[in-house]
């Protein structure tokens, strides 16, 4: 008798008594949500394969598979794990049965016979929660899709970066057209650009096996089909089968071409041109292609604009250089990072110096700096490749020496011998207070202690990348204390023609020793003090990282495991939140207070025996993420009856992420809550 609905918000009722099901249905029907009835646990599990369920009402005592077994299976399946289960128990609701119900994943239980009004109101709460959760899932899917697009765009950006090696406009146009056609599998492509002397947009480049038929090789903006689309300044997809013969010809869809992707090239809101891609199949392009190419077109437009305006390519080169450096450095609660890049002299050249910084986890940040020998676009592209590869190795969690080993392999495989690059890769662990570094032919970093003394952190000297496949880099680990600053630099900072390198290093040590503490000012100072009057012979990059005191910004408590500590911990958190997350509204602040108090209460109740004991509680904010941790070193007892098992579900509901790490000798509860980036601290999952 199971009725399957594929509508959101379905309420699943499971009871092996038909009369009970009928009664439940009568009670819950006024909610207006679809109901699915199941007469056994097996039937319920089958139904869950087909429905999007907001809440399950599950009879504990059923013939065959009972409610507890059913619940455990529901909890074990990824697709149904999140569905709230309300157990229905007959009679008094014995404590043991209730306890087992919670253990098997119940969010609540009700005792039969229930009061209809109350049951209906309460189930309504879960239906509402479900629709809010569904909204959140939709949002995160949209984010995932946006990320997929962003990945594709990055690929395209690399291609268009490469295309910019052709500073001459016609070569640039040809490269962009060809690469776009390849990327989107188009059979024909044409790039039309504006011309200062003639009205309209004119074909500047074509690509593909087939040819788009464009009358007079141009589009008149605002006229005809393509001209009208161009005038809207937004892209479109055209299908030949939806057009009459005349429009088909005007859209260039001849020679077997069936669909057309039209994207305007806009620079500063101005129409620079139009890129046309055509396919031989209907529906060759989808909405995602349109979005992707539209994003890429912005970049192409910029390149075209630069190429048109600056014959010497000076600005383009600089833009390229800047675009290859990180737009912003990671913000870390325990580290300050700053960097500077100075081009050499006045030549319109791109240098091969680069730096990057990547946050690996809440404690560790990787910083890297490198120098590709040579100048110009080729060096810049190599540097871009190195940077991207190293970034990937860092994020994958490779140690510095392993990352360099991998990178060496990449360089040898893709560039072959002859491409010389130096590199320094450093991982800073704020929790451990360590610096681990490996380098390939690069100068070592300098560490400035709190008292101003400076020394270089050496590792075994190695060859640059891409020289010798048998060369194995090795790493060293040094302590780094709060207040200390690490300076990474390229050799442009120290090299001066006609001067012994030791003199240059001494000058750097002096400059760093007396530099201001603040990292941005420190970088400026070091650059100024090491420059010659004639400017620099070589490009120079510097990057400074300062480790901060752990107490800065974070709330750290060590409290006796007593009930009064929970109150104290909450009041301290409240004060800390007021200072460190003032944008939180009262409800959201209480969410965090409750989640925190529950975690502390659990320690007080369950973690320790009669002996005096203590626990640690900490809260920190990183950007828009609040992270609260409660840690004890006790042996947990089973929950007693007063706790009622409500704490954990509340912690779950009130945080975005709850992780309970039970080790043999300690338990750590971590709760994470994202603050809205618009600054308003709205509550999550608020019915």
């Amino acid at each position, binding site marked *: 008798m199971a009725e399957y609905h594929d509508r959101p918000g379905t309420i699943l009722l499971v009871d092996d008594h038909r009369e009970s099901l009928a009664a439940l249905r009568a009670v819950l029907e006024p909610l207006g949500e679809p109901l699915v009835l199941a007469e056994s646990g097996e039937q319920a599990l089958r139904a869950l394969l087909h429905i999007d369920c907001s809440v399950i009402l599950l009879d504990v005592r059923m013939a065959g598979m009972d409610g507890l077994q059913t619940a455990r299976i529901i909890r074990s399946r990824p697709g149904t794990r999140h569905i709230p289960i309300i157990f229905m128990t007959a009679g008094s609701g014995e404590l043991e049965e209730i306890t087992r119900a919670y253990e098997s994943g119940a969010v609540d239980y009700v005792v039969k016979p229930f009061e209809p009004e109350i049951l209906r109101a309460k189930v309504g709460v879960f239906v509402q929660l479900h629709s809010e959760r569904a909204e959140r899932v939709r949002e995160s899917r949209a984010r995932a899709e946006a990320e997929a697009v962003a990945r594709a765009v990055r690929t395209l950006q690399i291609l268009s970066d490469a295309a910019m090696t052709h500073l001459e406009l016609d070569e640039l146009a040809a490269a962009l057209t060809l690469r776009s056609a390849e990327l989107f599998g188009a059979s024909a492509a044409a790039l039309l650009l504006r011309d200062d002397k003639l009205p309209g947009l004119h074909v500047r480049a074509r690509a593909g096996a087939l040819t788009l038929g464009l009358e007079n090789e141009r589009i008149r903006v605002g006229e005809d089909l393509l001209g009208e689309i161009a005038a809207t300044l937004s892209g479109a997809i055209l299908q030949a089968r939806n057009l009459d013969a005349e429009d088909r010809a005007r859209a260039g869809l001849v020679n077997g071409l069936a669909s057309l992707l039209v994207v305007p090239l806009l620079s500063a809101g101005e129409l620079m041109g139009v890129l046309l891609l055509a396919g031989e199949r209907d529906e060759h392009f989808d909405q995602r292609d349109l979005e992707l190419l539209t994003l890429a077109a912005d970049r192409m437009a910029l390149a075209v604009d630069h190429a048109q305006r600056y014959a010497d390519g000076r600005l383009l080169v600089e833009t390229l250089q800047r675009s290859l450096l990180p737009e912003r450095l990671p913000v870390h609660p325990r580290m300050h990072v700053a960097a500077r890049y100075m081009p050499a002299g006045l030549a319109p050249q791109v240098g091969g110096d680069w730096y990057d910084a990547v946050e690996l986890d809440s404690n560790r940040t990787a910083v890297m700096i490198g120098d590709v020998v040579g100048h110009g676009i080729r060096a810049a592209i190599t540097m871009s490749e190195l940077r991207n590869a190293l970034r990937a190795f860092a994020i994958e969690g490779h140690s510095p020496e392993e990352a360099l080993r991998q990178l060496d392999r990449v360089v040898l495989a893709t560039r072959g011998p002859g491409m010389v690059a130096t590199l320094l890769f450093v991982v800073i662990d704020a929790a451990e207070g360590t610096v681990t570094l490996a380098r390939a032919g690069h100068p070592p970093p300098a560490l400035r202690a709190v008292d101003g003394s400076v020394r270089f952190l050496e590792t075994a000297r190695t060859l640059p990348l891409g020289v010798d496949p048998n060369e194995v880099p090795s790493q060293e680990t040094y302590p780094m204390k709060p207040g200390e600053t690490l300076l990474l630099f390229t050799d442009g900072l120290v090299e001066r023609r006609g001067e012994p390198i030791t003199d240059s290093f001494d000058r750097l040590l002096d400059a760093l020793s007396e530099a201001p503490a603040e990292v941005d000012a420190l970088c400026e100072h070091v650059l100024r003090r090491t420059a010659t009057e004639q400017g620099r012979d070589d490009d120079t990059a510097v990057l400074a990282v300062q480790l901060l005191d752990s107490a800065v910004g974070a709330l750290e408590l060590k409290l006796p495991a007593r009930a009064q500590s929970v109150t104290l911990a909450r009041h301290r958190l409240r004060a800390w939140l007021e200072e460190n997350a003032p944008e939180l509204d009262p*409800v959201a602040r209480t969410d965090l207070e409750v989640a925190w108090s529950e975690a502390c209460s659990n320690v007080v109740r369950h973690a320790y025996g009669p002996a005096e004991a203590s626990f640690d509680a900490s809260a920190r904010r990183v950007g828009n993420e609040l992270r609260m941790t409660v840690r004890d070193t006790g042996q947990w007892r089973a929950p007693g009856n007063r706790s009622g098992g409500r704490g954990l579900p509340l912690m779950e509901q009130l945080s975005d992420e709850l992780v309970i790490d039970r080790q043999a000798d300690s338990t750590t509860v971590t709760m994470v809550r994202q603050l809205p980036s618009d600054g308003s601290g709205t509550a999550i999952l608020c019915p």
Partner: protein
Amino acid sequence: MTEEPASPKDLLGGAGIGELASVTASEHRPGLVLTISGEVDISNIDSIADAIYGLPNTEEGLLIDLSDVTYLDSSAVSLLHDLAMRLRSRAQQMIVVSPPATPPRRILDLTALYVNAPVADALDGGLKLLTGGNAPL
């Protein structure tokens, strides 16, 4: 419509439960009104429970007014649950008053099924429920 409640009689004498919260009780025929204010957590829940369980058991039902509670967590939720279960087994009713869009009400909403007692937005409505028997929410 509802009869004028008898003049409130403070049954607990305004028991201060530590510095965190206070509990007072008064008669509102045919029930009892219990007013809690301040913060309720694991540190004072046992004192509050003792105060409540020490109340005379001569009335039809109990109204727990949480309008002046600024903080509560699962310790309070468990107490409300125990009270509701106990009263129900004696054919008495329990009504909770908590204004909407307040932090305590949010916790009550999230744990509503567990507490399993009607929650009124304001004292007036709560008293009507108490005196009117099984009136709809």
